[in-house]
Structures are given as structure tokens and as C-alpha cells.
């Protein structure tokens, strides 16, 4: 297993470890720092808070926001909410899977894209919608979605 730089989480633990009820907040910071929740960091959180590793794992797996594996450079959050569903989000999912060869929860081999289905991004009137690294793309068609992915790939190659 890769070792994480544990010193990065210490300031968060200094602030929250003694505060009851803050495990979710700590995990949110952890994910912001490392991009996911590494196992060794979980053990460190356990040492500092006194919460057992099993309990931490329980919370981390309960909430869909938390990831236990690193993700690709671009995280595609594809909305599968009701409005997007009615307006054809399944076809967008098929087009993305077809283009990248990954389905929900997977990451491309080159580590560039991860795909995650989410429920409602709150932009239903622009459905179908996806959000990639904080930027929202609305009124998608299968073609438009593929085009966006290709331009992101190009952008990353030029960097």
C-alpha cells in the first residue's frame, strides 16, 4: 500500500479531533486533501479521535460522497435524477461508457477520467446535466457529451 503524507491531516485533527460529532467533517477534509480516504489516514484519525477504525469505515462507506480509492484527473458526475432521467440521461451514460470504456464508479486506465452517477445536481431545468471538476454542462446530447470529453482529453495532452 502507498503511504500517505500524514502530516497534512494533522491540522484538521488538531481542530476537530476533540469535538464530538465531527467525524464526517474530518472525512470531508481528508478527501479534500488526498482526493480520497486512504486507509492509513483512517487509522491516524482513529488514533487521534478514539473512534474505532471499524466505525470510521462504517461512516465512510455509508455516505456516497466518500471514496476509498483515488480517482481520475477529471471526475465526471453524471446526473441520474428524475428530470435528467426523463430527458434521456441513460443515453448520455451509454455514450460516455462507449467513449471511455468505463461504467459507474470506474476510472480509465490512464487515470484521466472517473465516472460517477449522482442524483440531481439542482440544475434540472438544463437536464440532462453532468458536472466535471466543478463545471456544469447542461442540455446534453450523447454527441455533445462525447465532444466535451474529447476536448478535455486534448486539453490535458497539451498541458
Amino acid at each position, binding site marked *: 500500500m502507498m503511504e500517505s503524507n500524514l502530516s497534512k491531516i494533522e491540522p484538521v485533527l488538531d481542530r476537530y479531533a476533540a469535538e464530538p460529532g465531527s467525524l*464526517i467533517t474530518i472525512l470531508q477534509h481528508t478527501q479534500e486533501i488526498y482526493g480520497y480516504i486512504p486507509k492509513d489516514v483512517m487509522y491516524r484519525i482513529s488514533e487521534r479521535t478514539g473512534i474505532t477504525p471499524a466505525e470510521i469505515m462504517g461512516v465512510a462507506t455509508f455516505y*456516497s*460522497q466518500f471514496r476509498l480509492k483515488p480517482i481520475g484527473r477529471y471526475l465526471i458526475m453524471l446526473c441520474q435524477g428524475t428530470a435528467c432521467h*426523463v430527458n434521456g440521461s441513460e443515453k448520455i451514460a451509454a455514450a460516455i461508457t462507449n467513449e471511455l470504456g468505463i461504467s459507474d464508479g470506474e476510472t480509465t486506465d490512464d487515470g484521466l477520467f472517473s465516472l460517477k452517477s449522482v*442524483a440531481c445536481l439542482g440544475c434540472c431545468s438544463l437536464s440532462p446535466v453532468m458536472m466535471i471538476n466543478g463545471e456544469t454542462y447542461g442540455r446534453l446530447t450523447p454527441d455533445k457529451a462525447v465532444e466535451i470529453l474529447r476536448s478535455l482529453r486534448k486539453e490535458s495532452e497539451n498541458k
Partner: protein
Amino acid sequence: MKIVVGEGSCGIAAGAAKVYSALESALNGVNAELTFTGCNGMCFLEPIVDICDKGNLIKRLVRVTPGDAGKIAAFVNGDGDAVKDLEISDDDKAFLDKQTRIALRHCGVINPEKIEEYTATDGYKALRKVLTSMTPEEVIEVIKTSGLAGRGGAGFPTWFKWNAARQSPGEEKYLICNADEGDPGAFMDRAVIESDPHNLIEGMLIGAYAIGAKEAIVYVRAEYPLAISRLEKAISQAEEAGYLGDSILGSGFNCKMRIKAGAGAFVCGEETALIESLQGERGMPRLKPPFPAASGYWYKPSNINNVETFANVSWIILNGGEAFAAMGTENSKGTKVFALTGKVKKGGLVEIPMGKTLRDVIFDIGGGIKEDKEFKAVQMGGPSGGCIPASLLDTRIDYKELAATGAIMGSGGMVVMDSSTCMVSMARFFLDFTAKESCGKCVHCRIGTKRMLEMLDRIVKGKGKDGDIELLEELCFAVKDGALCGLGQTAPNPVLSTIRYFRDEYEAHINEKRCPAHSCGDLLSYSIDPAACRGCTLCSKKCPVGAISGTVKNPHTIDSEACVKCGSCFNVCKFGAVKVN
């Protein structure tokens, strides 16, 4: 002049931020102030730019692109015709004119990041009135008179919950705002927080005063980063201005407020699960009673209300409970906000007095169905709600009348469906959602929803059996009875209501292996009629999997093995040559 760009999440997604930066450069050196506002609810026209002069709206421009910035600058410089082609049509204007706005009264009007714009529109006046001239009991009495009921779904009288929390013994009490907005297809609460965060803060403070809480917490969905950041700003502005903290407005009443970001779990919208989550645990509901009013956050008396519920409070205090109760029906008072989406022409936020009909909302305000197709049903209440068919379009917006249809008022999601939506697949969609979101505590909910999903899966794949509908119904009632919390108790609703109104569609899938809406891929086969095909090649270019072959001007063919049944060819063919069976 003042140029105002609508920057809610949806506006930004439609390109409002790019329009704003383009305007920044275009208006450089021009005598106009550039600012932004939240979401006015006309999501179908986004991005929207308002031009105001001396406080009056003189032009509303819609579907503005960054390229239009020059035109706006020209208008400010005196060319009265420069923005003509961008102006909103009278027909679209009616979308707002037909509404009655209370909870949304500032949305899209003021700058949500400027407390002075809120206070200039009577902001924090209600709080001042409450703290200087009313006892907590009097506040509760006004809310009782207003008839305000919870907007989060269940519609429980707000005054009753406030009173119960007030009466609960103990010094330490909490006021919590439920901004988890879990219904996938609803965005009323997001719009309120992004567009008018101080109104939420003010409503919460009045609630905190009424129940005697010194701490208030807003639990916001993780997927709403912009709402969180605007609310954070608003809280610190309110602290600075003395509306939050110790001895607010010199009254001796202390209250602090903080935000807790959720982590993505639908069940955490349920109030006791939300409390567990606030305490850093897995969001699993508690047994009720005791209700939160007696034992909530950290087992202290707590009161939980929805965002929209709080958004009505300051208006009620300023205008009186009677004014609010004057709107609506016998059972349902005031207004309700709906997030109108799906196959409707004008999708966005609609706030109307209770008592209006579904037809008023969908056809009169929403403009009817996209491409003038046939209306089939409207889904209300999300995963806990149901579908209401065309024959019941004249049902009034009223808690009881909607419940009688098998749907619910819900939190305000209103997803419109046309003839192309398969109702069985819709039921499967919601079951898939609830089965994934079931927290796993109750056997009936955890396993029952899973078994129901498997059956619906079979049915949409053409593998349904005789007796499936009856078995589904039986399971529905078992899950309803056997679940501890609202999630399981209501999860069968989408199935029950579609069986009730669209049983023929279930039967077509099961008996005839046919999907009347032409939506269930496994039951469809696409072919090209060689007599009608002109060989234009459009379909083969559009096919995402290269399943269509043929040469120019010669009839094309579809390889049914490779076909993924996406329907692209059907949609693009100009000659009606693609056939679906």
C-alpha cells in the same frame, strides 16, 4: 444604470459567469454598475440579464451569450434598439406575472451576497419586531394563525412543532434547518439559499427565539457548493451586523448559527437520520417517539424545519398570520414553491397560492408540453410520491386532495412526462433509487425494495410473468407496514400509483412483451424500411455504435446484434424510414 446577471447554479451552468466576465470588459468605461443576483426561477431562459434604471427594471434580456455583451454596452450608451432581439417575450413574461411570491420574493431581485440589499427590502425587520415587541408564545400564535405547514414533505403544522419544542423541559435546545433536498428533481431549497440566504437566516432566528434555542444549524446537501458558500458569507455578514451572536439587537437573546455539509445520503433528509448524521454517525433513523422536540440533537429538545418553511416566516411576521391564511384552501394555507421540470416547455421555479390546479401550473404557467406532445403524467413528491395522470389534471394543490390521488404534495418536485415516458420504467427508476438509498436498518425496506426492483427489472426486460403485478402490490404493502421511517413507508408509492393509473402499461410489458412508450430498449427492435430510405447516411453518422451500414443513395440496414437501441436513428431520420417495434 444597473446591469444585473442572474447567477444561480443553473444560470452559471447555462453560461452566466461567462456572460458576466464578458460584460465586465464590455462595460469598462461605460456608465453602468455591473452586479449579480440569484435565480429568479425562469431557468428555461437562462442566462438572464436585467437592465435597471433608478431601481426599476427596464429590460429583461434572455438566453444571453458572452457575444451579446457589446449590445448591452451599446444600449447603456443610448442605442435604444441594441438589445431588441434579446428581450423577453410577453408570453414568457407571464411565467412570473402569474405567480405569487412569498418564499421566493427576493430571489432574482437582490444580490444575495450583500446584506444591505436584503435590509433595504425590509430584511431583518421581522426579527427586530419579534425581539422588541413579541413574546415567544406570541410568535407561535401568529404562526398558528397563518396555518403554515411544513414544506419538507409531510406538511405538519409548524406552530405545533415549535410549541412542543418550546414546552420541552431543558435549557439547551437546538434549531435545525433541513436543507438536504433529497428529491432528485427538485431545487427549490437550493434556489432560496443561493438567492436569498438572509431570509433563511432571519426565519431561523425567529424560530430559534420561539422555541428558546441558542444554537441553529443548517444541514446542507454536499452537492450544493454555491449554496454553502453564499450562506457562509451571509452568516458572517449577519454576525458582523449584530443579527447573530450575543444579545441580538440588544435584546438579550443569544443565538449562533453554523453550517454542516451533508455527505450524500438521501435518508439523511429524514429528520432523525439527519440528527444522527449531525452527530457524525451513519445516517440511520431513530425510533419515534421520542420526537426530536423532546429528544433530538445530542438528545436535547430540537426542532427541524425545511428551508422553504423558514423562508415564509419573516413575511408572516411582517404581514400577519391572517394575510398568509387568506391564501389557499381550507386545509392548505399560503403558497407553495414547485420545481417544474421534465417534458414541460417552461421549466423553472413556480410559486403559487395553494388551491391552484395542476393544470394551472403545467399548462398555464409552464406553457404545456415540449414539442406539443401529449401530456401523460406528472410525478410529485419524488421517491416518496406518485404519478398523477392526465384525467386528474384539475386536482388542486392541497395536501389532502393530492394525497387522495396516491401522490403527495412532497417538497415541491414536479416532473412532467409525455407519451415517450414509460411508466413501468419510471417506477423502476425510483425503486432503483430507494433500494440504493435504503439505510439497511429495517429488513422490509432493505430486502423488500431490492426484490421489488428485481421484479421491475424483469418486467422492463420482457421477462415479466403472470401474477407479477399482484405480487408487487403485496410486497408494496408489506414494505409500507414493515419499515421504521418514511423512506421505506413511502418507497412503494411510485409503484402503487403507476399500477393504479397505468396498469395497462404493466400488462403490455408482461403479456405482450411490448413497451407502449417505445422506451424500454429490450422490448424494441429497430429496422429501416428500404422503400422509404433515401440513403442520406444521416442515421449511420449519428449511430453511436456504428451499427448502421449502407452507401450513399442506397437503403441502409441496422445490425440488430450491435444496435444499442438508443433511438438516435429514429430521431434523425427525415423520411420516417426507421421503424420501431
